[in-house]
């Protein structure tokens, strides 16, 4: 088991993330849960860029960045090397949603199919943030990004979020979970569980981005909570492909989440787009149905 680090910080101050950055918090919490006997493999992206401008590095654990799409393949090589050298460090991949859902798909699929022992953390801020907010496979339906902008002829991103947890569960991943920086203890527990489960494990961490989504930096946690409370971000665990634990909520209507962020502003101004909001509500309802999100209130 990884040496835990309740009081030490393995992700140092002085990094260049925006104030209020969800991903920076994710990096801190994940490394706290992982402990010192960890090798972190990062893909290109916000986290890599704000943490390692030569010669400043915020990482106090061994860390490697190779390319945008190949963290899983690099991790596969590290795992093989550690095995041969008889070393016990654990491997944690930290990659954004762009690197995970899109450009890294081939490498992830290969690594998960081969069953390497590592933990893959996707910090999901739902777009290519480092390059200035472009649409990824994780961008939610109707979110406005620079490559899926809302306009007179468009409501923004046309496609729902790709279901990465299901894809990786289908690869036979023994443990797959979603988590959020809104619930740090839950997040860290899931990271520990993933690291303690042999084989390729995946934890998708919701990391709201104030700069990219358009909200004030102090709202990061509140918005992360709303994502869960509206059912748009189901928080769950899967063991051997079966959903075993789910965070149940008394569900709020999706408008409470959507109205907090500029990326959904076009659904309300200049006029409210009821059909679009209903479509997003339907996504939340389907999530609630699929994962059993709703707290069943006792009948009087």
């Amino acid at each position, binding site marked *: 088991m990884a040496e835990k680090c309740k009081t030490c910080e393995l992700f140092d101050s002085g*990094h260049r993330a925006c104030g209020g950055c969800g991903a*920076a918090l994710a990096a801190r919490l994940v490394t706290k849960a992982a402990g010192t006997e960890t090798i972190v493999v990062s893909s290109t992206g916000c986290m890599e860029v704000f943490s390692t401008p*030569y010669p400043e590095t*915020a990482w106090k654990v061994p860390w490697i960045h190779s390319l945008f799409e190949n963290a899983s393949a690099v991790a596969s090589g590290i795992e093989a090397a550690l095995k041969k050298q008889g070393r016990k460090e654990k491997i944690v991949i930290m990659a954004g949603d762009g690197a995970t859902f899109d450009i890294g798909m081939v490498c992830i699929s290969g690594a998960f199919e081969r069953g390497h022992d590592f933990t893959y953390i996707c910090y999901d801020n739902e777009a290519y943030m480092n390059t200035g907010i472009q649409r990824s496979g994780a961008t939610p339906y109707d979110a406005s990004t620079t490559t899926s902008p809302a306009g007179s002829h468009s409501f923004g991103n046309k496609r729902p979020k790709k279901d990465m947890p299901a894809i990786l569960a289908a690869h036979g991943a023994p443990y797959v979970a979603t988590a959020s920086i809104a619930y740090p203890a839950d997040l860290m527990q899931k990271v520990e569980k993933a690291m303690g489960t042999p084989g390729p494990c995946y934890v998708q961490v919701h990391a709201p981005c104030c700069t990219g989504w358009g909200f004030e930096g102090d*709202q990061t946690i509140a918005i992360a909570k709303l994502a869960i409370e509206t059912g748009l971000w189901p928080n769950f665990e899967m063991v051997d492909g079966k959903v075993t634990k789910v965070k149940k909520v008394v569900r709020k209507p999706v408008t409470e989440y959507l109205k907090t962020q500029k990326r959904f502003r076009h659904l309300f101004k200049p006029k409210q787009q009821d059909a679009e909001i209903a479509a997003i509500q339907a996504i939340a309802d389907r999530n609630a149905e699929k994962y059993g999100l709703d707290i069943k209130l006792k009948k009087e």
Partner: protein
Amino acid sequence: MALTVGCRARPGKSRDNKTGSWRVFKPIFDHEKCSKCGMCQTLCPEGCIHEDAEGTFIPDYAYCKGCGICAEECPKEAIAMKQEEK
């Protein structure tokens, strides 16, 4: 300082970058109201809130970017954001 081989570095130098200079608003901690729950320390993206020997939570203003998450999330409303005099 001589270059490392292959653009590598050991830990520590990120602390040379005093991100406290980014701040517009500054969190002021009221230790009377504090219930010592540690939520501020847990949620700070900079990891710059530290617990002292008495269990009080102190922000490190050298790095605090003034994002306001600690103030927003403190269950006792013990942290207030004040515009900084420069």
